[in-house]
């Protein structure tokens, strides 16, 4: 049993890890809003980059968009049976 197994197999420890992840996520989102207000940096190329928590919002939107749009294209058109080219 390696180190990872001990962490992931135990339900109590796993729940603790999951909680930890959500806390980190919250801290990152908060820092993304607060830090630019404290340290004004003028290095943005576009106005939308200085929007509150721009990175977090765009990251989440991108992920959801990529998964949903790709799956739609795949289901509607691109995905075929595994032996498609062998038949």
């Amino acid at each position, binding site marked *: *049993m*390696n*180190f*990872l*197994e001990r962490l*992931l197999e135990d339900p109590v420890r796993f729940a603790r890890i999951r909680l930890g*992840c959500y806390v*980190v*996520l919250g801290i*990152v*989102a908060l*820092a*993304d809003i607060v*830090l*630019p207000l404290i*340290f004004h*940096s003028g*290095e*943005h*190329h*576009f106005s939308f*980059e200085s929007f509150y*928590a*721009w*990175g*977090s*919002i*765009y*990251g*989440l939107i*991108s*992920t*959801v*968009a*990529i*998964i*949903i*749009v*790709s*799956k739609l*294209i*795949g289901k509607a*058109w*691109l*995905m*075929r*049976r*595994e032996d*498609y*080219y062998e038949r």
Partner: protein
Amino acid sequence: MSVEWVHPGILLILGAWIIPFLRGRVKRAAMLILPGAALVDCVLMTPGTYGVVNFLGQELVFGRVDSLSLIFSYIFSLIAFIGMVYALHVEDDSQHVTALTYAGGALGVTFAGDFLSFYIFWELMAVSSVLLVWLRREPAAVAAGFRYLLVHLVGGLIFLAGIVVHWSQTQSLALNPVADGTAWDLTLGGAAWGLILVAFLINAAVPPLGAWLPDAYAEGTVTGAVFMTAFTTKSAVYALIRGFADTELLIWLGAAMAIYGVVYAVLENDARRLLAYHIISQVGYMVCGVGIGTRLAINGVTAHAFAHILYKALLFMGAGAVLQMTRRRKLSEMGGLYKTMPITLGLYMIGAFAISAVPLFSGFVSKSMVISAAGEEHLMAIFLMLTLASAGTFLHTGLKLPYYMFFGKDSGTRAAEPPRNMLLAMGLAAVACVLIGIFPGILYTHLPYAADYLPYTLAHVMSTLSMLAFTALGFFLLLKHLDPEPKVSLDTDWFYRRGSSRFLTLVQGPLARLERGFVGEICEFLIQRPVLGAAAVLRKLDSLVVDSAIIGVGRSTQTLSQLLKTVMSGHTQHYGLIMAVGFLVLLVLAILIP
């Protein structure tokens, strides 16, 4: 070739042939010394022009050494070394010879100073890399190899056509740099320009010309695929920097390509095919940067190619280790491997963090240069597309693939860690990824232009971290939609895998019926009938007029000769009588006519 300059590519290509004659430890030492010597050779090289050979009245330049060719030669020979470490345990000399020849070809392209030597090494790469697919010696690999060869031979012929057109216009094969020092003097929009650009785009796997890449790379040998990820596409990127910097078309092609790879990665079930689609996505950043063409962009492309070769090789080595140890390639059949392959998992994750541009890993200091270059040029759509694609990169390479391969539903597979040399090679690549991430200066000092780019600013680190964190959130929220499905996705290779047989069915079925029915009827009505009718008329005319005229002449000749025969009796008294009668007639005529 001058004595003070040794071509590292030719060193590898010729040196590779001693490997089959060696055994055991000596052979393994030679496998490392060859690429090691090439690396040292490249590092010791100073800019200049070397290896000028006159051939059939043309000047061939084998060693055009400048800052751009140097940095590409460093990474090509470094990855050849790491790849050979990864392949040390393989008891198949042909794979080693082929891999070293392939690396030598890439180095040859890098240092080529004229079209002819460039073309020779370019084709050598195509021919040697196809062997790395065939040497897996399975029917699927042989078939994929033929398709790969088909595409690259077509690309090579297009390139050759471009060179011939260029030569016939300028009478020169030299790769002349134009005034600004980088691009070749091809007439923009001319035939040679277009042909050579298409040939490069095929090798850079730009859609719709790029489906050969996931098709072949997923079928290559475990160790051979590592070499393939490094050389073909990145030497094409190098060629694009040389010849087509600041070409606006490439900006859009590159950005579209970055997203295209990500979309296919969502649908993919085969681990190495998924990673191959991410090569397309990552090369998209490079093609886009070449199109932007500013100093920051070209520096970014070069740095990204360097970092990409290392982390992509690391990822392919990780996936290859799993493939070799489990004999499974589909994500839907893996899972739970973290229990028995934790070292492979750890090393793979370093590559995954590097490609996802996590701060302190190499992708962070290179990819951001290209995105910043798009920002500096105020290309908003491009900036957003590239940022979206980098969320997709983390989503697949950093989350989806490791989740389904190492965690996820336990498949019950209990594979051991791969041989030590494979872990060592992955370790070397991982160390390089982290070193470049922490000390970007190591890489920046060798870039073609002076680099004053600062990757570690608060805003940049913050926006990257928050984007990655929320990409991860999105992944776990939509996890059940991402389960890999045992399906294949159609790509443009459909046209030569299925399209061609569809085309033949069309030709043999409906088109043939159409030909016999419709075209045949029209043909009969318009051509056959009039021609046959005219022929019949002419035949009648012939038999009636011409024939009877000839027969008539014959008959009358015969009748006349029968008549004359009665006169010619053979008796002298008859002839004398006739003469006397004739004489009398003449006499009468002479008297009667005054």
